[in-house]
């Protein structure tokens, strides 16, 4: 087996991992900061893909869809937080879990009613069709774009959290919401924004996945399972963990696909089991955290 094949395989794994990272990130941020296990995350990923497709066809450009869908669905997420989730803060963890579980069914059925349950074609943007010659092999332009875009989003998110005042408030709010309120910060607004951000990231993942997979109402359910696995491996609530674990899962799937293709999807669960045995709190999780 030659080296170029292994490099191509690694690259496929990173592209696959990038979509996982962006989706798991939204899940882990919402859990880490709000303590809400969002079971509607997969459905919102799917809604994001539909919104991206709809906005792209409305404006005639994929790029508007890519930009606007996460924003619109993020705002929709804030509405969900304001109307539904907000009432359940401070209650046990299973209340929001059940709520979002029910919500995911409503969203999926809603899309089925509006768009039908068949898949809808989501064309790759004109500029990114085809393959790029990397010297050692050909790789789809679109997947290279996804890798770069996810890297940029991660960097922006890191800078926003670590280097800005809002980021400081968010981090402090996650640590000790009561103290933040004493200091005069409207913590409700911070949580609203965080939930919107998490949902927006799910939608972004959906739009990015659109041109790679067929867009259909069930596309979120598989993604939700993957995002949870990534979140658990990385450590619940850990942003760095989501990034590392997402790439790890993507690359593991890819390398296993090379040697034992029929095991490709099982490997992530095996990886999760191994990590949980060695570090029950996940790779970057904090021991004893019960948000």
């Amino acid at each position, binding site marked *: 087996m*030659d080296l170029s*094949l292994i490099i*191509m*395989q690694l690259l*496929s*794994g990173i*592209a*696959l991992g990038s979509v996982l990272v962006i989706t798991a990130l939204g899940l882990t941020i919402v859990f880490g900061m709000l303590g809400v296990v969002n079971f509607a995350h997969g459905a919102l990923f799917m809604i994001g893909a539909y919104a991206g497709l709809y906005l792209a066809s409305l404006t005639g450009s994929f790029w508007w869809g890519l930009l606007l869908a996460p924003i619109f669905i993020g705002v929709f997420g804030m509405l969900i937080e304001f109307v539904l989730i907000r009432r359940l803060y401070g209650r046990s963890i299973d209340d929001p879990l059940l709520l979002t579980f029910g919500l995911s069914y409503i969203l999926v059925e809603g899309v089925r009613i509006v768009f039908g*349950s*068949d*898949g*809808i*074609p989501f*064309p*790759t943007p004109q500029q990114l069709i*085809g*393959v790029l010659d990397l010297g050692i*092999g*050909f*790789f*789809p332009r*679109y*997947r290279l774009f996804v890798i770069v875009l996810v890297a940029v989003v991660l960097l922006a998110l890191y800078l926003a959290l670590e280097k800005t005042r809002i980021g400081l408030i968010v981090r402090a709010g996650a640590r000790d919401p009561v103290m933040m309120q004493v200091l005069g910060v409207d913590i409700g607004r911070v949580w609203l924004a965080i939930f919107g951000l998490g949902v927006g990231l799910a939608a972004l993942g959906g739009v990015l996945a659109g041109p*790679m*997979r*067929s867009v*259909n109402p*069930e*596309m979120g359910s*598989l*993604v939700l399972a993957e995002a949870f696995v990534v979140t658990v491996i990385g450590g619940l609530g850990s942003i760095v963990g989501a990034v590392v674990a997402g790439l790890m899962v993507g690359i593991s*799937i*890819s390398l296993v*696909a*090379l040697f034992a*293709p*029929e095991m*490709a*999807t*099982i490997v992530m669960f095996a990886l999760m089991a191994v990590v949980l045995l060695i570090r029950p709190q996940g790779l970057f999780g904090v021991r004893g955290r019960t948000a």
Partner: protein
Amino acid sequence: MPNSVSTPKVTRRTALAGLSAGAALLAMPRIGRAADETIRIGFPTPLTGPFAAEARDQVKCAELAVKLVNDKGGIGGRKVELLVRDDKLNAGEAATRTLELIEKDKVHAVVGALSSAVQLAVNEVTRARGVIYVSISQSDTINEAKDFSKFTFHEALNPHMTTAAVARQTLKKGMKVAHLVADYAYGHEMLRGFKRAQAAIGADSVGEILHPFGAADYSTFMPRLMSMRPDVLCISNFGRDQANAIKQAVDFGVKQQMKIVVPVILHNQRLAVGPDVFEGVVGGANYYWGLEAQSKSAASFNAAFKAANGGAIPTDYGAYGYSGVGSLLAAMQAAGGTDTDKVVDALEKLQYDLTKGPQHYRKCDHQSVQSVLVLESKKKSAMANENDLFAVLANEAGSDDMLRSCSELGHAT
């Protein structure tokens, strides 16, 4: 309330009379109604999950077949009713639903199931209860002696028929062939069919990759498939898996290097990913609406379907719903009722032409002998209208020669 409208006054006496009359009607012995009792056909199909699009088309077509018979006064004056159940693409669910259909709903026969694994579960149940089952799922094993029973009929094409026809159109001696295969019964049977066909032609396998059923991402299989440098890539999977696998293969530039071939090219999946992705992909099919130019039965099937479904055209897997239920009802008509032995007899003798030309069930294994189409997905610019999806490369007339022989299947001959 205006005076001109008088409210009917219900007196105590008439109310009592009405109630007792109703009670008498309900208490009437069942035997008295048996003559005009409806004929019930159970129809398990995966309405939810990755084959849902195909399943829904099957239901529409099955309902059409029932409606056409009812419009003509039913069978011996008895109306026909279709009982659709969601098998959720799960063998256990399908077995439970089928058992319920038989025990609780007292169906007279079962038609349906889309996945090959689920179909075998339905067959287990119907066989054990002695109920006729007309399968409309592709499978090679259901006709083999070990799964077969006199109650088992197979209306759909089987992997042996489609892969052979597709291979004859696309493979040549000395060609290199790679396989991407869904890791379950359907994929395995299609792979077996292709390998048998390519051996007969003299083409060589350069490798095969089994992928997990229902995977969303196929990108990780592409570098290795391309490194095998085949002339033809056979992708043997079904439903959304087909759409995703072809789409991602095309993204990786597979089509520049090799031809993509599938055992069964799916109308709905072609619609789901668009003409550019499917352009030039070749696959087998049981039906294509465009046959109406050559076939009178296709034209009348299309017309009936359009009339019942707001102008929409019937799809390949939909047609199975129509021919599966249609052939069963024709046999019941010939048998003059629902007596199982008589209907089995009638099905074995039946010559039918519902969608595309003459068909009959072969006596030894009850496989429907029928024509096989080979279709090629058209380029966007070559499409005359949005329904003009495929060019018909071949229309092989049905004959026993395209099936495995009865002795090969383990039947006494």
